[in-house]
């Protein structure tokens, strides 16, 4: 034999062998496991943090961050297609032959060697027997063929369930069809163009119209899966395909506009539905198509299916009152902003950039202390960053409405310096009108040095010990003023530092206690002064007031750790949402579905149709009938059937 030919033959044999297929399937299985264990398509920084630079680079080379679209994965799929196709090519002829044939050429010798056989003695005539036996076979659903053998015996060769053989063909053609469909929908065309250098992914965050042509996919791109974020009231005709750590711009043959996006909620606050009212505009259309899509209910136009996938803010307009926390007055400045845009607070070197990042109208939070209560909606919140001129930023999350904690209401603002940190919260107690003003006015008095004398005076008036003696009174008032100016510079921790510096250690606790007492008495007067100035009824002395003052003083002390001198109170908003759409074109889908139907048919054929063959030879010279039976699958059902037929035939023939 030609050695070259035999090599390629061996190679083909290997390719079409089951060993090879099983190996490929095992590798596929392992690769799939990796893809599920290692989270796919994360931002690359996350991987760097997780693995370190060296392993990150290695894993990237191996394509582990997007296993299912890596070159080697696609190659395995390709080999599976080839291997299975060859297997089909080699096995189909014999399968078809088995399907058709009655095996009527079986010799008497070979039939006698069967493991399942029986011989019956009979006196009946051949014709009589032939009639009986064929009736029997018909009743059992067998098809048959006659053949007279050389020695005069009449052989009836029968078969049933040979359609089972189609099972093999169907399942394996199905695999090829499904894989083919899958490859059609994969990003193979882009991959090839990328290797050839015609296309590359864009990694910069630049406006869509500046993305160069080599990172754009035309409207004739046969298959893609892209995303589009449309704010309410806008339209667009491009979508973005995420690839590794970058993206491609996919151009669309039409324009999609979003009229309205809605979220509905259950009574418990969990989301019930996401819906987008879309308009499709296309010169090919006489009139634009309007349709509402929702999760599980996409719209398909020009072979492109449009899905509701997620949502985000679409540029909500915001109006704030900005309080300068350290200004000794209670005047708030207005500030207008829009989500995803920036603003400026303050002037000169101390100016801060405000970046409005997110607005959420509903926030379902479980506020019960043990976490077992029902979550409920606590109203809108806004996330923003304040960035100084060195680029350092502090992130804030601010809830618009006061939240109830332990039966009292507070305005809550969280702040953190880095994304890894947890938010730390500033809790400002509400006043009797459930507003922020009470605290802000109080804070203004506490910061205003010109008010301290008055506070001290009021305290002294109320204190019997001090009132009478003018020298004591004078000294007392001075110390109150002093303490208040220390407190105004750093809250409790400012006071603590002073104590640490100027008081011997064994006296510190007592002094601290006195100071705290004094501050809270001063706070009572300060709060009331603020109320009087605004023409409001003053506080009564009771436990509610005590709690209010304690919370107010804590909040006052916390503003020194707030990271910025500005408090942004969300006053009004005009909500604008953006719908997250996914657009897919998958010409392979019908192939995959076709393959799936074949697969199911094939599996049922293979497992629930049982191929059986019966040979009945009427041997007049021996006055015998010989019965032999075989199946390509030996199992208990076959044994049972054989035993049953053997007995039935005995009574039929005997």
């Amino acid at each position: 034999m030609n050695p070259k030919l035999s090599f390629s033959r061996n190679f083909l044999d290997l390719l079409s062998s089951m060993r090879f297929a099983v190996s490929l399937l095992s590798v596929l299985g392992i690769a799939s496991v990796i893809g599920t264990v290692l989270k796919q398509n994360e931002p690359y920084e996350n991987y760097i943090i997780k693995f370190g630079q060296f392993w990150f680079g290695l894993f990237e080379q191996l394509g582990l961050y997007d296993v299912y679209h890596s070159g080697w994965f696609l190659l395995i799929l390709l080999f599976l297609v080839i291997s299975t196709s060859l297997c089909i090519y080699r096995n189909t002829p014999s399968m078809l032959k088995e399907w058709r044939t009655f095996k009527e050429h079986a010799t008497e010798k070979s039939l006698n060697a069967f493991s399942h056989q029986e011989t019956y003695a009979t006196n009946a005539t051949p014709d009589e027997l032939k009639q009986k036996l064929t009736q029997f076979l018909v009743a059992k659903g067998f098809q048959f063929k006659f053949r007279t053998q050389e020695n005069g015996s009449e052989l009836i060769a029968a078969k049933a369930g040979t359609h089972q053989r189609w099972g093999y063909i169907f399942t394996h053609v199905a695999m090829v069809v499904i894989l083919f469909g899958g490859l059609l929908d994969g990003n193979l065309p882009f991959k090839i163009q990328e290797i050839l250098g015609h296309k590359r992914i864009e990694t910069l965050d630049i406006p869509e119209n500046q993305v160069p042509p080599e990172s754009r996919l035309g409207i004739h791109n046969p298959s893609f899966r892209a995303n589009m974020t449309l704010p309410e009231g806008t339209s667009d005709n491009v979508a973005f395909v995420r690839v590794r750590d970058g993206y491609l711009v996919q151009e669309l043959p039409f324009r999609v506009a979003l009229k309205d996006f809605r979220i509905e909620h259950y009574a418990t606050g969990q989301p019930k539905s996401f819906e987008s009212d879309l308009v499709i505009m296309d010169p090919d259309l006489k009139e634009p198509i309007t349709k509402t899509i929702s999760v599980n209910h996409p719209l398909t136009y020009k072979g492109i299916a449009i899905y509701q996938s997620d949502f985000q803010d679409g540029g909500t307009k915001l109006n704030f009152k900005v309080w300068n926390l350290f200004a000794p007055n209670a005047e708030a400045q207005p500030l207008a902003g829009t989500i995803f845009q920036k603003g400026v607070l303050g002037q000169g070197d101390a100016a801060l950039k405000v970046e409005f990042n997110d607005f959420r109208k509903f926030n379902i939070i479980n506020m019960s202390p043990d976490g077992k209560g029902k979550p409920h909606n606590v109203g809108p919140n806004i996330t923003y960053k304040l960035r100084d001129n060195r680029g350092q930023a502090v992130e804030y999350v601010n809830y618009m409405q006061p939240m109830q904690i332990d039966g009292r209401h507070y305005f809550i603002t969280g702040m953190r310096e880095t994304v890894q940190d947890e938010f730390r919260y500033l809790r400002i107690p509400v006043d009797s009108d459930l507003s922020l003003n009470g605290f802000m006015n109080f804070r203004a008095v506490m910061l205003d040095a010109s008010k301290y004398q008055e506070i001290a005076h009021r305290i002294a008036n109320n204190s019997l010990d001090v009132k009478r003696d003018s020298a004591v009174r004078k000294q007392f008032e001075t110390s109150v003023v002093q303490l208040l100016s220390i407190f105004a510079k750093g809250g409790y921790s400012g006071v603590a530092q002073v104590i640490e510096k100027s008081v011997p250690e064994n006296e510190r606790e007592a002094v601290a206690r006195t100071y705290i007492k004094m501050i809270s008495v001063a706070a009572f007067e300060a709060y009331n002064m603020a109320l009087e100035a605004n023409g409001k009824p003053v506080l009564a002395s009771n436990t509610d007031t005590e709690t209010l003052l304690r919370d107010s003083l804590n909040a006052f002390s916390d503003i020194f750790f707030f990271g910025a001198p500005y408090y942004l109170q969300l006053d009004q908003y005009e909500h604008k949402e953006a719908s997250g759409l996914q657009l897919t074109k998958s010409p392979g889908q019908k192939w995959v579905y076709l393959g799936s139907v074949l697969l199911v048919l094939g599996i049922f054929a293979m497992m629930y149709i049982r191929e059986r063959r019966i040979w009945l030879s009427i041997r007049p010279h021996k006055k015998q009938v010989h019965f032999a039976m075989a199946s390509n699958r030996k199992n208990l059902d076959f044994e049972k059937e054989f035993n049953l037929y053997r007995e039935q035939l005995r009574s039929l023939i005997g």
Partner: protein
Amino acid sequence: MNNSSLEYQQKTLLQRLNSQDWLYAIVIFAGSIFAYTKYAQYMDIYETVFLFGAAALASYLGWQWKTLGKLVLAVGVISLFSISLYDGDQARATQLFLLKFLISSQSAIMWMNVLFVLAMMVYWFALYKRSEFAGKFASALTWSAVLFGFVGLMVRWYESYLIAPDVGHIPISNLYEVFILFCLITALLYLHYEQKLNTKQLGGFVLLVINAAVGFILWYTFDRQANHIQPLVPALQSYWMKIHVPANFVGYGAFSLAAMVAAAYLLVNKGVLSSRLPSLDVLDDLMYKSIAVGFAFFTIATILGAMWAAEAWGGYWSWDPKETWALIVWLNYAAWLHLRMVKGLRGPLLAWWALIGLLVTTFAFLGVNMFLSGLHSYGTL
């Protein structure tokens, strides 16, 4: 024609039906038509098809397997009775004696749990004592557990609508509910083979997996309060759920059954309990049949899942961890079937494989939810 030649004539299914069978089917269809006239305005075309499809399936299965027909009727009657006791008021579940202690959804499910535990003990006792009677009793307990389980699910379905009409949904939407479904389907598959092959000795083995699931249900109920009915997230509001999930659980149930039979096989192969358990041939056959059923249903379930994904996530295949693990499970059993059918392999290797296959299957079923995150929205632990 004489008698002896008639003996071998096989009757078709329709010829075998007697008046009782027809009555059964009529009752089932009358029930579906009643349900349809009552709720037609809330059902889309698919759900209408499913309703009558389910009626046809119940009739067919009931004809083929008479005990199942009785079960279907009993579940129907008891569920309707329980629902009538509720009378549109959820609070009655804890007020009326009969509901509180027997057939409110929560109590019925608890009874299912208890009965499964008892059934397992009795099965093992029967195996140990070689007692025919105890074996029958254990079977009866298992049937009752299944009865209570289905009643529990049916009533839970109704109860979900009592919370709020928009909350109502079929109770196969989260881990708690599908674990119940898993117990029921695995038990039914087992009971089917038990009746056909008279293999009561295997009950103790099969009920081991079921009771593992029962343990999970109990933990999930008492530690996590998972028995509370939650509304559906938007992605799950689809008619696909009604077919994709049950198909999957026939698969999981059959694979679990196969694994337990494999365990028995391995013991017999080592000579342990071999005088008490069925022969290796029977065990091998049962293991194969069970995997074959599981494989067929798992294939269908995966395909239905892909079709659902195409509608909900914008692609029939997204390599979501649950999808990927379904594929791994599928490949695993495809390989098993290849070796058996193509290479003709038999014996302990396949049994070990079927047993270890259960680990893979369990990971796909549970582990993915616990350890991996993805698009599948139900049941994070």
